[in-house]
């Protein structure tokens, strides 16, 4: 790397912050692409890209939000190259399956994960950011490069779809193996990618 605009101390700070968000990157990636090994590859790709682009990071702003944009863009690119098929890792889901105390019929996290993976990508990421990652609608909108209202509506639709799938127990098994569905997803991805504006601008 030739462009060293950052001092050693700044690099150390950057690295420390990057290190802190890695677990969050892994969680976001796992939710997006479903498979632990692919998710981790994606995170490592993200870390390298973030490191290479560190002079574009504004100290004092959210490292988590900044790196999520990078991860998201890498994911969309890989999706379009067909790398992720939304495969579902049964083992991982079983391992993390837990039954909250005091509920007669707890949601199985494996069902939850599978249902999540059947959502169109832009709704899935909106729900992950807001519902799981704890981002505000505003932050999520910046990460996705779209309007706050768009995020709200995506979260609302994702929420409704999940609720109905989980309530009816009607979770498509392998939605993404269906070629028509896969094509539809790719088309939607183009729309999502087109909205990369605000936060993703580089």
């Amino acid at each position: 790397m030739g462009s060293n605009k950052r001092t050693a101390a700044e690099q150390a700070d950057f690295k420390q912050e990057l290190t802190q968000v890695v677990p969050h990157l892994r969680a976001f990636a796992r939710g997006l692409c479903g498979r632990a090994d692919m998710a981790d590859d994606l995170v490592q790709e993200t870390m390298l890209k973030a490191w290479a682009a560190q002079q574009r990071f504004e100290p004092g702003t959210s490292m988590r939000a900044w790196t999520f944009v990078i991860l998201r863009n890498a994911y969309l690119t890989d999706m379009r190259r067909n790398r992720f098929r939304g495969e579902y890792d049964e083992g991982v889901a079983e391992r993390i399956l837990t039954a909250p105390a005091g509920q007669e019929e707890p949601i199985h996290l494996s069902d939850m994960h599978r249902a999540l993976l059947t959502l169109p990508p832009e709704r899935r990421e909106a729900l992950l950011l807001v519902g799981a990652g704890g981002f505000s609608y505003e932050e999520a909108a910046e990460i996705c490069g779209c309007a706050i209202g768009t995020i709200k509506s995506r979260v609302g639709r994702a929420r409704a779809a999940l609720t109905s799938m989980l309530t009816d127990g009607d979770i498509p098994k392998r939605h993404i193996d269906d070629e028509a569905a896969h094509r539809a997803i790719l088309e939607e991805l183009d729309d999502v990618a087109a909205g990369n504006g605000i936060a993703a601008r580089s």
Partner: protein
Amino acid sequence: MMAGNKDKGGTGSAEISATKKKDVTDAEWANGLRQLYDSVVDEELPDSFKDLLSKLDNKGD
């Protein structure tokens, strides 16, 4: 910022839907979603990540 210390679903969905068996409430799935996320956040970082992080230093200088 780092919303790292979320309450891990501790603000329970447990009692909210006591009467309904079938209906999955918002609180339930929201709780499940957070658990999915937090379970990964809480995993120990695989060595491959530590290796990568230690390599970054050399790359930068």
